[in-house]
């Protein structure tokens, strides 16, 4: 075709932009781990906290993944097609856009011994007039960490399920199975779950890999002595002695091995579950009694997840404007804007830099994703499964396993500490989400519009700019908002590639979390959440404004 130029290369370029940093980073982590007679590994093995740290990474990660998946499937199975389901769909995007650090801080404010829950129950139910001496936060079993992960991963898995549902033909299959006498849950499990899960597999692996290795959530909510393996790797990396770096590299390699082992075990569990499912189906599973229980449980988990996030964030907001606030009081005695005023200059500069990095990473991601999708359309390329795996690569390989190596590369080339380098590192994580968010809507566009445009003499480029892009403005802006949210929430890439000198709202919020200034933490965490929320609001408002006189562009169309 006439425009066979650079566009044709967009998919390959994009895949390379994802593979090269991950591969180079892994290499850059492996080499120091094994150099000097594997000194790093010997130091690692000498560390007494090693086995509990590995065990914590495994238990919290697997538990969080299993719980999130179970909660998501329960919600979908028992509420699909109801009004509550529609309500959850509306709440989803804002919940999803809450950065991990803000969610963790909110949850911390909620469940801490002096947090909102304890305040609401005291003193009348508990008799406490002082914050109790209980280790609820940072508990040694990682229960708070697991809960924190679940509140963030349920919205993510739910969104991925929503994207997969149209292909699973839910309504018809459930109806058929129910007409054969199965209860609703049994009908879902037997007739929908297998094809639904096959599409959820990659997102679930990403959740498992993430949950086992989350750093900022582990720093805020996780155990401390020892911390989870990934959190400990980051602590070693900050060690000014060079021995710390070698130990960190060895720990990162071990973390990667543990994640691979856990993924393999998960795949094995999938196989067993599939066999069990076939048995159940052959046995004529009906399980009517299950339906009511499941429904109750679904409403409960859905509400608990949403409430934990929303109340946590509300807690942050109240703390940020709190004057005097003594222990058992449910609300502060007075409100004041003093914290905001005092922090305003710092908030403005940190927020500005955060936005700048997010805008750069998102704009570039969006351009690449659009180029890929347009190349796919113009050259009638059919997306391969391999490409999907590459897209998930940065989400499957633990950040602690490849970012240290990437940091060394950044250091050597002298770009470490520059905001553009941080934005480039963010791109690796932003791009997959932008693609996953935009691709379904882009591909579902009516191809006859394109043929109509071409038949009127419009070039493919004109069809793209004047027809496809404006018609798909809403999903494009939503994908941009997703990208913005992902970038704003990045902790480890910002910390490592920024060399500690590029301060964003997220790195500041996590850094503040170890100190006790709840009011200041509240301001940073709140702003960290407001930026992505604004993005989503704009993605809704702008198309609604532009196309207010175009009925054919209404949301349902």
């Amino acid at each position, binding site marked *: 075709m006439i425009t066979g130029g650079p566009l044709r290369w967009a998919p390959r370029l994009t895949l390379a932009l994802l593979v090269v940093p991950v591969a180079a980073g892994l290499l850059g982590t492996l080499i120091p781990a094994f150099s000097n007679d594997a000194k790093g590994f010997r130091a690692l093995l000498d560390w007494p906290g090693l086995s509990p740290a590995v065990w914590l990474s495994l238990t919290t990660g697997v538990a969080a993944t299993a719980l999130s998946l179970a909660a998501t499937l329960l919600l979908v199975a028992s509420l699909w097609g109801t009004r509550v389901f529609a309500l959850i769909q509306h709440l989803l995007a804002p919940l999803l856009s809450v950065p991990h650090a803000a969610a963790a801080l909110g949850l911390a404010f909620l469940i801490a011994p002096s947090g909102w829950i304890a305040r609401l129950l005291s003193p009348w139910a508990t008799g406490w007039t002082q914050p109790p001496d209980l280790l609820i936060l940072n508990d040694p079993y990682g229960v708070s960490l697991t809960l924190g992960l679940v509140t963030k991963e349920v919205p993510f898995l739910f969104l991925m399920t929503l994207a997969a549902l149209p292909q699973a033909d839910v309504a018809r299959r459930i109806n058929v199975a129910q007409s054969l006498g199965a209860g609703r849950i049994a009908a879902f499990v037997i007739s929908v779950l297998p094809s639904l899960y096959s599409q959820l597999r990659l997102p679930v692996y990403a959740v498992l890999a993430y949950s086992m290795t989350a750093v900022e959530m582990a720093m805020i909510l996780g155990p401390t002595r020892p911390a989870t393996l990934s959190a400990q790797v980051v602590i070693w990396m900050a060690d000014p002695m060079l021995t710390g770096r070698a130990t960190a590299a060895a720990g990162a390699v071990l973390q990667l091995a543990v994640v691979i082992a856990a993924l393999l075990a998960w795949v094995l569990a999938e196989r067993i579950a599939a066999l069990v499912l076939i048995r159940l189906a052959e046995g004529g599973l009906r399980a009517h009694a299950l339906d009511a229980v499941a429904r109750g449980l679904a409403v409960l988990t859905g509400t608990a997840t949403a409430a934990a996030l929303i109340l946590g964030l509300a807690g942050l907001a109240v703390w940020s404007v709190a004057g005097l606030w003594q222990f058992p009081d449910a609300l502060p005695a007075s409100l004041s804007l003093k914290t905001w005023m005092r922090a305003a200059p710092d908030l403005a500069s940190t927020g500005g830099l955060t936005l700048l990095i997010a805008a750069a990473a998102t704009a570039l991601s969006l351009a690449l994703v659009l180029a890929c999708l347009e190349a796919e359309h113009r050259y009638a390329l059919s997306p391969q499964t391999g490409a999907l795996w590459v897209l998930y690569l940065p989400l499957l390989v633990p950040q602690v396993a490849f970012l240290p190596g990437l940091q060394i590369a950044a250091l050597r080339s002298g770009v470490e500490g520059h905001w553009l380098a941080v934005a480039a590192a963010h791109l690796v994580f932003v791009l997959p989400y932008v693609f996953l968010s935009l691709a379904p809507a882009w591909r579902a566009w009516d191809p006859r519009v394109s043929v*109509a*445009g*071409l*038949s009127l*003499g419009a070039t493919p480029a004109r069809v793209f700019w004047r027809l496809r892009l404006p018609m798909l403005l809403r999903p494009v802006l939503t994908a941009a908002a997703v990208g913005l949210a992902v970038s704003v929430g990045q902790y480890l890439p910002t910390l490592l590639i920024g060399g500690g000198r590029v301060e964003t709202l997220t790195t500041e919020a996590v850094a503040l979390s170890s100190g006790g200034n709840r009011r200041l933490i509240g301001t940073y965490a709140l702003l960290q959440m407001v930026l992505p929320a604004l993005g989503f609001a704009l993605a809704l408002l702008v198309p609604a404004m532009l196309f207010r006189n*175009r009925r054919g562009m209404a949301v349902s169309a």
Partner: protein
Amino acid sequence: MTGVLELQDLQITQGQTRVVALDLTIAPGEVLTIMGPSGSGKSTALAAIMGTLAPAFRTTGRVILAGRDITTLPPHLRRVGLLFQDDVLFPHLSVGANLAFALPPSVKGRIARRALVDAALDQADLSGFAARDPATLSGGQRARVALMRTLLAQPCALLLDEPFSRLDAGLRAQIRSFVLSRIRKEGLPAVLVTHDPEDAQAAGGRVVTPLGIPVKL
């Protein structure tokens, strides 16, 4: 610019099966009708003339339009107009902007372009509709806008893929005679795909299957 549309031994195969075999010349103002059962290859024949055939098909032969060999040209350079079963008006543009989209870049200046759009609306009995949202038009009005949009692009040939099948009986005859009279007036060679013998009769030209076999009405 008008001229004949020549299909020179145009053959399209999908795997081992031949779906299209046409070897004929369509004169300016003539409407060739293609009829045949669903899935027999009617839309495929049009896609080959349009240049939008899926990679699954193999094509041999040539398509000559007004003396130009367009067989390997990309769709937007072929100057072949197309009307679908649905009007496929662009939902984000006003009626006037839909029409202006089709104007060739050679028409320069806001006022000149606006004048052509208004003239086209007048000819379709839609004076003053330029600012309207296409979603607020009736089926017949939308069909007329779609035709005028196609004509404003100054095509050298017109392809029609069951363009009347979604309209109800009364409207159908009315739009059909509007479209056919425009084709004769502009002197365009046209190919009409339809399931309705009445369409074929009104078109008044030859009637063949996608494999070129004459059809008796």
